[in-house]
């Protein structure tokens, strides 16, 4: 058991023992290899089921929206930024969450790792920065760093930005020379090519809305896709409807997206939905100097303005 897991269990059970929280949100071992999935503990015993490894890809801030109980929450860098978002957007008061911060060194890309073996991965083991995967007749030892998710590779906020406790020493933040290389690559395409890029991206979308539902930002009581008066968007497999959904979903995250990657993690069809939100992350940063979820003291870009904002595009 790694130290993080040990400390998560200890801190969580202490909190529950002392009655300082009603429940703790963390990750538990799933029923498949490479599945560390959200789980809750209401008793110190249940907290012994918590784990931490490099498969804790989802964002736990997703579960604290409008909760009434006092919640302890395990938060890596991106989760903590979404907790800040939630506090700013009045989805939960600061004193209702006890944030157990986890300095994070990134989560691995399960699809790239799965692709390494001819058949299923039967076992996944992690020792420090080294990963061992085993299939029916194959075995591979991997350097974790080389298999990080795309968003983790360029993450510059690995340490929780807000926390009440920490499970380990802070880690060194990465310095990324050109964090928006991926967006720039799409920007460099011709218009038609960009259109086709996104068309191809969405060709397998089944509209399960896992991307929306895994996202901590998507908490509207009625999503625009579910509205019927007027009905903004058709419900079928029409490509225009699918694209409209993805555009508007992404746009609703403008100035709020922390690039945690939960949307891509949840997608059953492995669609790179971050290609939509990344453009907004870039623009929010380059135009408004804004990185979401870092501070409670400034309002997000679409909630405020400056009289001197650029007018260049306006006639």
């Amino acid at each position, binding site marked *: 058991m790694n130290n993080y897991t040990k400390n998560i269990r200890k801190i969580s059970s202490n909190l529950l023992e002392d009655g300082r929280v009603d429940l703790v949100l963390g990750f538990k071992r799933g029923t498949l290899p490479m599945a560390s999935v959200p789980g809750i503990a209401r008793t110190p015993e249940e907290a012994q089921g918590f784990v931490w490894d490099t498969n804790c890809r989802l964002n736990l801030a997703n579960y604290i929206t409008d909760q009434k109980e006092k919640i302890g929450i395990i938060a890596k860098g991106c989760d903590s930024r979404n907790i800040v978002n939630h506090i700013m957007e009045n989805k939960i008061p600061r004193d209702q969450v006890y944030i157990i911060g986890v300095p994070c060194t990134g989560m691995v890309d399960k699809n790239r790792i799965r692709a390494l073996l001819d*058949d299923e991965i039967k076992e996944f083991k992690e020792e420090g920065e080294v990963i061992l995967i085993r299939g029916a007749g194959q075995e591979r030892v991997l350097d974790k760093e080389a298999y990080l998710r795309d968003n983790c590779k360029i993450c510059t906020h690995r340490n929780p930005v807000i926390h009440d406790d920490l499970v380990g020493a802070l880690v060194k933040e990465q310095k990324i020379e050109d964090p928006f290389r991926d967006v720039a690559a799409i920007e460099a395409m011709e218009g038609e090519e960009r259109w086709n890029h996104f068309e191809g*991206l969405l060709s*397998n979308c*089944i509209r*399960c809305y*896992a991307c929306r*539902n895994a996202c901590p930002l998507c908490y509207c009581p009625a999503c625009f896709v*579910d509205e019927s008066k007027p009905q903004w968007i058709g419900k*079928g497999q029409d490509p225009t409807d699918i694209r409209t959904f993805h555009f508007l979903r992404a746009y609703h995250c403008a100035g709020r997206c922390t690039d945690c990657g939960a949307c891509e993690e949840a997608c059953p069809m492995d669609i790179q939905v971050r290609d939509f939100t990344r453009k907004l992350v870039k623009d929010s940063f380059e135009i408004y100097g804004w990185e979401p979820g870092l501070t409670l003291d400034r309002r997000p870009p679409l909630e405020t303005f400056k009289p001197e904002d650029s007018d260049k595009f306006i006639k």
Partner: protein
Amino acid sequence: MKIIKIDKNDWTRGIDKSRETYQLFGPVTDSGQSIFKQLDKNAYPEMGGTNSVMSPKSVLFPQTEKILAASLDASMENHHIMQRPAADYSRRAVIGIRPYDAKAVRLVKLNFDTADYRDPYWCDAHGATTFVGLAVNQPSAVDFSISMGSGPFGEEGLDVLLVDLEDHYLAKVLTPKGGAYLSDAGFDAAAETDASLTTIETMQLAAEAAITTTVPTDRLQEKALLDLHGAPFWEDLAFTCINCGTCTFVCPTCWCFDIQDETKGKSTSRFRNWDTCMSPLFTLHGSGHNPRGKKTQRVRQRFMHKLKYFLDKYDQGTMCVGCGRCVEKCPVNIDIRSICSTMNAYDPKDVA
């Protein structure tokens, strides 16, 4: 029992030949995902791959299907009268469907083809379709089909069962429909029946032995429905569900749909789209009331329907065939195997 031997060198030629008389569907890789699709002229079913992400249910029950249409142009004959649009129900064959998915078609039939109601779209498609199955030699880790009354070599719902033997297939002809497909494809080399059956049986036993997950279902039927409905475990079980529709969309037996009308210019169409009981909209009443407004209620509904209501209503086993897709694709790994075990073992007396 007739058994045909198909040399793999003849396979593509046979597939091509069968295209003359059948529309073919099969597993293909699209943007890295294995899905069942109608095969283009030069596409071949990818046999022997792992479980497809999407089940073949879409062959009979497309995610979006136009069921009625009308013209709003008053100068046209029959304007404003909704009519069933023409659709191609010529012979089709689904190549490479897995036994548990074929069993799922049987279960879905119980809903779409009853004594009282017959869904013309599904039934017409079903009647036109020949199911050429492929036995699972190497079951995946999430395969629990045996527990759910199917199995890697299950024959229910199939017209032909192919068994992969490296350089050739042995094709078990299960119905006349299956025989017709094979002869149209030009596969006619009869194999020696007894020896082939022995070979197949050996392989079947090996495949079945490779499935180590057993999910108990034996006590589901005797449980009181309201006991299970009121069981205390649903709340915690549903807590981590993010309420997406992945489990229902990848499920080969989920058959629910929603009706939508769309009008554009002078034409109007009525579609049905897959719907999902995970969505709050699924049960939202016109009054605004929602009997399943809470996530827990919706999660409970899905499992109760599959593992209890269906069982009670039809007495044909569970409405789960153990393909493992939902286990694998659920973003938070809510595992029907453990939920089924929990339900099967639940006794209200233990809680009180």
